[in-house]
């Protein structure tokens, strides 16, 4: 193995000595082979980028992006003074923190329990059920939640009524929504998310487990002193990556759970993505929408870079670049 790597390095350094034109000519087929992918990202990711300039203009449809008047940072000033930017940032980060904390705890817990289950059929069937929510569309998630929370016929209210309680109007009970969103998130993501941890546990050397058993360690001690420490690198790396994405929200989940018209809940359930969408599609306010979007991109970029720097310091192999 080592030998081949050295050979390849040698070859790579040999290639570097060639001139750029020669390099391009020699690898023309390889370049052609990745050209479609490169063109795709130019077309749909890089080309729209100059358009972020809208955030600094008073864009109107007639003049187009680059002929609208330049207004400097006015759009951002308005967002800050109206308190919207702060509210959206706070909501997005808080929701993500809850997702990360509860999500990972539950995933690790589930993975450890799964690893204790010896019955293969039980394991397979239960995993199949637990993964299912991950593979359905956000639209269906919204409908499934509606079936539970609806005032007239929702399943939760059926249960509440069966115990003699009064039905609860969940869709106008604002303060319940952070909990509802976190629970639905956990319902959808935990099963599939636990796979990473489960795989990491399966990767632990069984000799260690057996040795511990011979030494008289009980099952809790095994989990405490072998499983959890072995999971530590995975936990830290995944944690850092999720912190890197802390300013990015799951549009589909929030949008479909709350519903497009339930304005009473927007205050507490609005994240950057839903605000950006509604500002543009409902109010045709392209400047506000792109100002918030640009803010998200830039701050998000800084956060990712910082997290990647942390990962690099821990383990270079896991860093993004």
């Amino acid at each position, binding site marked *: 193995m080592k030998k081949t790597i050295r050979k390849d390095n040698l070859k790579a350094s040999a*290639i570097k000595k060639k001139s750029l034109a020669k390099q391009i000519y020699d*690898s023309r087929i390889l370049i052609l082979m990745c050209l479609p992918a490169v063109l795709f990202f130019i077309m749909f990711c890089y080309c729209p980028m100059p358009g972020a300039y809208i955030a600094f203009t008073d864009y109107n449809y007639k003049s187009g992006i680059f002929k609208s008047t330049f207004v400097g940072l006015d759009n951002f000033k308005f967002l800050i003074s109206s308190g919207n930017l702060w509210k959206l940032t706070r909501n997005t980060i808080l929701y993500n923190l809850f997702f990360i904390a509860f999500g990972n705890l539950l995933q690790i817990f589930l993975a450890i329990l799964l690893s204790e289950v010896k019955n293969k059929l039980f394991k397979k069937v239960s995993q199949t059920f637990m993964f299912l929510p991950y593979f359905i569309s956000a639209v269906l998630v919204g409908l499934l939640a509606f079936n539970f929370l609806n005032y007239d016929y929702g399943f939760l209210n059926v249960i509440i009524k069966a115990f003699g309680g009064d039905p609860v109007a969940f869709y106008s009970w604002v303060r319940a929504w952070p909990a509802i969103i976190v629970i639905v998130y956990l319902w959808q993501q935990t099963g599939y998310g636990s796979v990473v941890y489960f795989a990491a546990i399966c990767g632990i050397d069984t000799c260690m487990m057996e040795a511990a058993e011979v030494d008289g360690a009980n099952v809790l001690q095994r989990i405490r002193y072998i499983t959890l420490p072995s999971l530590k690198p995975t936990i830290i790396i995944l944690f850092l990556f999720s912190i890197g994405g802390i300013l990015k929200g799951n549009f589909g989940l929030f949008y479909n759970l709350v519903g497009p018209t339930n304005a009473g809940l927007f205050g507490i359930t609005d994240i950057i993505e839903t605000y950006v969408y509604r500002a543009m599609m409902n109010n045709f306010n392209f400047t506000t929408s*792109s100002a918030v979007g640009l803010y998200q991109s830039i701050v998000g970029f800084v956060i990712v870079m910082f997290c990647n720097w942390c990962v690099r310091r821990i383990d270079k192999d896991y860093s993004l670049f």
Partner: protein
Amino acid sequence: MVKQRKMKIRQSKLTISVHILSYLFIALFAIACLLPFWLIITASLSTETVINQTGIGLLPKRFTLDAFKYVFRSPKDLLGSYGVTIIMTVSGTALGLFIISMAGYVLQRKDFPFRNQISFFIYFTTLFSAGLAPTYLWITQYLNLKDSYFAVFLQLLMSPWLIVLMKNFAKSVPFEITESGKIDGAGDFRIFLSLVLPMLKPALATIGLFLALGYWNEWYQSMLYLTSKVAYKPLQYYLYAIVNQAAAMKSSMAGNNVSTGALPTQTIKMATALVATGPIILLYPFVQKYFISGITVGAVKG
């Protein structure tokens, strides 16, 4: 001696209780994951008026197939949506797989001098993006793709994450394979097509399934770029319209004289949701292992 035996018994008691707890918790969690699906089935098989009075139950209330009959009575829109989604899913998955696997293979080849630069060029798009509004304007005003299925089809074709995943898979194909092809005088594309691609079958299955799932569940891009001008909505967007149409009409109905009979009622929503999602749920247990390998190969490096 006695003490030791006692220890052993205590330990095994602990082990047993941990095992029972594991089975119990996992069973409960699995049921919790399944329950919403079960309720949608029972609701779709219930009589509408009974549901409205007494709510959704664990078993169908006054069993009837009316909702399904209604859905299939004038199935033109539904079948059209099915057609659009199936065409997009099949062609998008095939085209996407071809482009992604070529790029993934090339970008991990150690003798390709530009692999790092191009990899970063692609990866950078996940770090920084133009944002929704500039993208929307670019696609609708410059590419003129408003109300075109291509706005949806093209954007779902690939993602940096899938290319990284393919790269990771392709790394496991020994470089000697490529070298042996070269020695035999095959060109790079030929090497890829006839030597490397057959070895990437598990990768193709995994990434193909992620692509197919993306196309099948697509509703977001459709909501952005397709208006009622298109003949048929993609399936999940069709479901979205049905689910939210009822809500929107109810809230604006007060003054207007809209007959409630014309509204897509609850049971019909459920039946539509089942018809739109059914294929995934039925197919999914058989392909589950590929999704698992996807997250374990690509998880951390993603």
